[in-house]
């Protein structure tokens, strides 16, 4: 009886061990965990490093240090502490993983929605005027001869917006961002025609810093 129980438990351990090793393969697309690699991991590491949770290398490899940082982040933000970046943790980080975060269905209102996505991903947390200002910069570029002449062309222009590079552009915008997009499309331009903006605390780019500053709103500096 006892022998049988021991046998069963060892068999169970065996099956569990195999399952544990298979999990990364089976759920590689669903969440990020120890052993995951790739751009999504890089985005998580960047975000954790930016917020002081992670001090290791941003190498796209989800190792022990990354897991420890994720656990710390989850603990601080009232999330289930499991060291795995799933839907809720990704959302709390403001990230949209390749398929970990399911996007809400997008209404078919084209440019307004895309502009709201850009505003939300680039400027949520900024004052309302600052959110409209980001939308206005996109629209000023559309009207400028030096940029593509469509909203999608401007937003998806290579390297133009960090939110496109890190995937945050795919986050679902809130009502404030949608209103800000509509106000910007309606012509409100708090920047007076600016074509660029940046956060001085996060940018070391010498070229953008050399542009003459027109105004500051929240944490963003706007320039022409």
């Amino acid at each position, binding site marked *: 009886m006892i022998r049988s129980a021991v046998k069963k438990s060892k068999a169970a351990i065996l099956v569990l061990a195999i399952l544990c*090793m298979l999990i990364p393969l089976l759920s590689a697309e669903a969440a990020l965990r120890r052993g995951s690699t790739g751009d999504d991991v890089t985005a998580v590491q960047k975000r954790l490093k930016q917020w002081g949770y992670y001090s290791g290398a941003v190498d796209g490899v989800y190792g022990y240090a990354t897991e420890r940082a994720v656990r710390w982040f989850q603990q601080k933000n009232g999330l289930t502490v499991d060291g795995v970046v799933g839907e809720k943790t990704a959302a709390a980080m403001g990230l949209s993983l390749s398929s970990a975060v399911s996007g809400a269905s997008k209404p078919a209102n084209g440019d307004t929605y895309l502009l709201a996505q850009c505003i939300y991903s680039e400027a949520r947390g900024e004052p309302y005027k600052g959110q409209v200002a980001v939308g206005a910069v996109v629209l000023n570029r559309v009207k400028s001869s*030096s940029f593509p002449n469509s909203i999608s*062309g401007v937003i998806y222009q290579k*390297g133009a917006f960090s939110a496109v590079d890190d995937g945050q552009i795919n986050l679902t915008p809130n*009502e404030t961002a949608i209103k800000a997009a509509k106000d910007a499309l*309606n*012509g409100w331009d708090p920047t007076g025609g600016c074509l660029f903006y940046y956060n001085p605390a996060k940018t070391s780019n010498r070229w953008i810093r050399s542009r003459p500053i027109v105004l500051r709103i929240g944490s963003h500096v706007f320039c022409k």
Partner: protein
Amino acid sequence: MIRLSKKIWLFGFPAILLVGLAVMTVTFFRQRETIAEQRRVIEAQTESAYRALSNDLNDLSVALGKLDAASTPASLSKRFAEIRRLTAGATRALSLLPVSYADDSGLMQFLTRTGDYADTLMDRVLSGQMLTGGQLESLGALRTCCADLSASYDGGCVDGSFPAAGEDGFYAEADEENLANYPTLLYDGPFSESSEQAEPLGLPDETVGEAEAARIAQDLFPDRTLAFDGKTESTIVTYDFSAADEKGELCVSITERGGLLLYFMGTPAGANSDPPGDEESERLHAAASACLEQLGFGRMEPSYAQYYAGTVVINYAAVQSGVILYADLVKVYVDRETERVIGLDATNYRFCHRPRTFDRPILTEADAKNTVSDTLTVEHTALALIPKSRTLEVLCYECKCTANGTFFLVYVNAETGAEEEIFEVINSEEGDLVV
């Protein structure tokens, strides 16, 4: 049992480790292959954009060359339409290339302005005018520049030696010396240099200081405590103020030249976005008109309105001697819940508003109606000055027309009879959209 246990430890766990190792190896190679595949897709898209740009530049050079051989307005218009199409394609392709703004803004500007210039010349040719010597010279310079650009991009397509992206994913920065010298184009169009560098015409020369601007702003909103946010050093320099209290956020901008209100924007109390009924619409318009009058704007004509996020936004255009000045626009935001004005944007008005001198229209109202398509029924006409760019306005007859339940605004040039603009008015849930 002990023997069995040893066997399990001897063979079972190494087997588990082997299976695990195999799984991890498969995972590693699968992910590596996925990354490599994604990289190849991106490279293919980049090469495709590079080839499209190269082809468009080559075709553009040819299309510009063909202008020399075109002699009739129809033929010239065809070439200009082709140039417009090719420049649009080239700008789309260029925006997909990993080129930094510092490197590609010159080429982007060149392509956009070439297309814009072609539009302007097509209008000229269609109105029966010939191209001037200066315009022909500019077209020659564009062709030469285009041929040089085409040759420089063509090399990569012939031998496959596309520029390699650096570690940051971008093409290497171009040397200042290697940047093309793009010809300067003198014309009036939305993307022309004169339009992009236009100065405001609706502001007096005398300036006010920060303290005076603060007083003006505070007088406009005596029940709010405004704080100075800073100065906007733009084409229209403003002093910016704000308040954030139980009434919500409020931003106010006062111009340095003249100490005039440029805009203010508050927070709506509600979130109603449904189209209002006739009576509500009337009350909202009355509130907006009263506000404009109180703020000293002259005679203004309301045009279309939009409803969203608890507000109605009504567009007003200035009127002079019965002519609607569509460039001199003021947008008034009225809170649907309180029916009070919570925002006003006079940027366009401040930029453009000044007394205009009009020539007597050559066309009569009846002439203008006759030029409109037979498929349309003209419901109403009025004289309007419409902006073609920031520096060019055209006096037109605005013909409000219907056709099978669809509303159109047709603008007929009051001098030449040309149809300058056609807009469709779409009555959507959010109000009137003019497209």
